[in-house]
């Protein structure tokens, strides 16, 4: 089925990236080592120290949150009813889980101290029990530091509720590129199905000889954009094309852009991403006298958003009204994408974020059919079992590590702002 290998990035010596490595290793389903070596008090102290040192910034950030909670509590008025109180309550509610995890950390830490004292107990039965207890407590401590705290510290995604609009364009490689585009399109539509999202082909240009020159697919459902946003970039395929007689391996590419989809209904006029005054709407081709004189279907439209220079053409629907609606939907998604990119830039998130920050013209992933492997170049992830991924089910195994990597960089930027 599926195996996984992690590349260079995990050998880094930075504590944070080591955390990434610890996490990634869990994808290989390796269990913590449980060899029954006897631990003495000094080496136990050292192991705990290591966990604390590696997670020092994370612990500091968690402590700041708990300090903030104490301050908020002390500021509450007696009646609990002022507007400020309501704000404070909200903030307290938000940090409840962190507090609970911190309490668990402190009690685990205390138990560990007590257990360490018993590690060298004269009674062999007691000693054995303490050893066992120690291993279990240490694993709790490690889990809190490396997984639980980071999870709680990364803020909820502001785009978590958004659907996605995916644009696929064939690149180098001619008809082979178009054939691969059809396969990618199928993969995303099947993946959407697995995730219980709705996938609808908004527009596509199919070629006479099979394959698709370009396509736009709408994937509706909560979390669709957040999961699929990592697919933006150039996807490269290496294989012997079906049409190739000499058996030579070709390299072709497909460019993917994933845009956040904003529902028309959810935007009110002031918050909308554009003003109608900035839109130039053109209908394609002359229609002569038009009206009753002509019954040829002329439904294509083109929108231009003048300030940004974005143009959207749509001709796949038989009614102009529908093409217009689709075109506005694509325009909104592109503008939303620009807005999110600007926000990320201003938040400095992009600095260490290889995934989101990547140029869309950059090669992100290679599908090598002769070797039956997929490599994601951004995080050095290699999977074998191309079919499993192309069938839609396996895509999650690529998206998960990318999402994890993203969370790591968000966390890293957040920790950079924590005063030491």
């Amino acid at each position: 089925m599926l195996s996984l290998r992690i590349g260079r990035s995990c050998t880094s010596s930075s504590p944070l990236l080591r955390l990434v490595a610890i996490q990634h290793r869990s994808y290989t389903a390796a269990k913590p080592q449980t060899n029954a070596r006897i631990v003495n008090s000094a080496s136990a102290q050292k192991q705990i120290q290591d966990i604390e040192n590696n997670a020092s910034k994370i612990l500091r950030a968690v402590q700041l949150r708990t300090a903030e909670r104490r301050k908020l509590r002390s500021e509450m008025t007696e009646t609990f009813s002022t507007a400020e109180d309501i704000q404070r309550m909200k903030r307290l509610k938000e940090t409840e889980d962190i507090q609970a995890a911190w309490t668990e950390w402190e009690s685990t830490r205390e138990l560990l101290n007590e257990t360490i004292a018993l590690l060298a107990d004269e009674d062999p039965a007691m000693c054995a029990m303490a050893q066992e207890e120690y291993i279990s407590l240490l694993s709790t401590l490690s889990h809190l530091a490396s997984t639980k705290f980071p999870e709680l510290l990364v803020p909820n995604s502001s785009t978590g509720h958004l659907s996605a609009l995916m644009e696929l364009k064939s690149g180098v490689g001619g008809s082979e590129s178009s054939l691969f585009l059809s396969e990618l399109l199928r993969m995303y539509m099947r993946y959407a199905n697995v995730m219980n999202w709705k996938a609808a082909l908004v527009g596509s240009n199919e070629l006479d000889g099979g394959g698709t020159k370009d396509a736009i697919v709408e994937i509706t459902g909560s979390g669709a954009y957040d999961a699929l946003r990592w697919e933006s970039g150039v996807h490269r395929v290496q294989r012997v094309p079906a049409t190739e007689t000499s058996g030579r391996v070709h390299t072709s590419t497909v460019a993917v852009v994933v845009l956040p989809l904003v529902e028309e209904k959810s935007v009110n006029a002031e918050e909308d991403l554009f003003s109608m005054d900035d839109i130039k709407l053109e209908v394609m081709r002359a229609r002569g006298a038009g009206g009753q004189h002509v019954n040829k279907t002329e439904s294509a439209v083109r929108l231009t958003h003048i300030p940004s220079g974005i143009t959207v053409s749509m001709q796949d629907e038989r009614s102009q009204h529908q093409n217009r609606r689709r075109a506005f939907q694509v325009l909104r998604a592109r503008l939303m994408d620009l807005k999110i990119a600007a926000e990320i830039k201003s938040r400095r998130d992009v600095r260490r974020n290889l995934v989101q920050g990547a140029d869309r013209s950059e090669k992100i992933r290679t599908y090598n059919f002769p070797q039956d492997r997929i490599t994601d170049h951004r995080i050095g992830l290699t999977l074998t079992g191309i079919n499993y991924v192309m069938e839609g089910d396996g895509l999650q195994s690529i998206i998960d590590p990318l999402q994890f990597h993203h969370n790591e960089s968000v966390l890293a930027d957040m920790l950079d702002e924590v005063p030491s």
Partner: protein
Amino acid sequence: MSIAALVARFGRQHALQEIKWLKSAVQDNQHALEHLINRRLTGEPLQYILGTQPFGPLNLLVRPPVLIPRPETEHWAIQLAQLLSPTPAKPLSLLDLGTGSGCIPLLLCHLWPSGSLYAHGIDCSPDAVQLATDNAESVGIRLLSASTRRDGALTHNVFKPELASYLDPTVLNLLEPPYDVITANPPYIPRREYDDLPSEVKDYEDQRALLGGEDGLIFYHAIAKLVADGLLAEHGTLALEVGHDQAPRVQEILRAAAHMESIDVWLDPWGKQRTIIARRS
């Protein structure tokens, strides 16, 4: 190969687009597709082959020889839906003259709030009345049977398609004036232009929906007379589609024969003066 013939006839891009629509109608069945393309090559309109035409958010049935809804009509009907805003507390009554497929009243019934519109449509063609009735059922708009008068408050938007000609002098007996809104896409093609129409229009669509007499204006005169006779309410709105060069003359007719002074002209998406919006005061 018939696909090549389609490309030669319509140009590459348009032909590919049509093939795609035809394909989805036959679920990629190659043999059936071949048959549809051959029908298309004889000049039969795409819409009749597919049996439907989207109109705003509605997907309407189309059948020969009833006029296929045009994008120009779709455009102004949507605009009209935004111009007026009836509510169940302040409902409107509407008369659509020459309703054809029923596209205009059905779109308004669909877009306006439930219980805010009573729409009456007449047509001189039994085919059209049947199609408009079928369309109402297909898009889920309540029907009121012909010759039934409406009474009491509306609980839904209602459409009443009825067989009648508005050139018939006794038509007023059958109608329920005054109406708050009158809409029409009357036959407006002059005889000389009619003779030069492309085969896919002239040989398939009903002459009675296209030909507006020698000068293309006879139906506007008839409408102006009906308005003068009190068919439109005091502050009512008249929305008329006109031919590509008829707006000035139709305005003149409305001023002279119906004393309508407040007149706007709307452009269609191709920049042609396409719709006259007139009020009595």
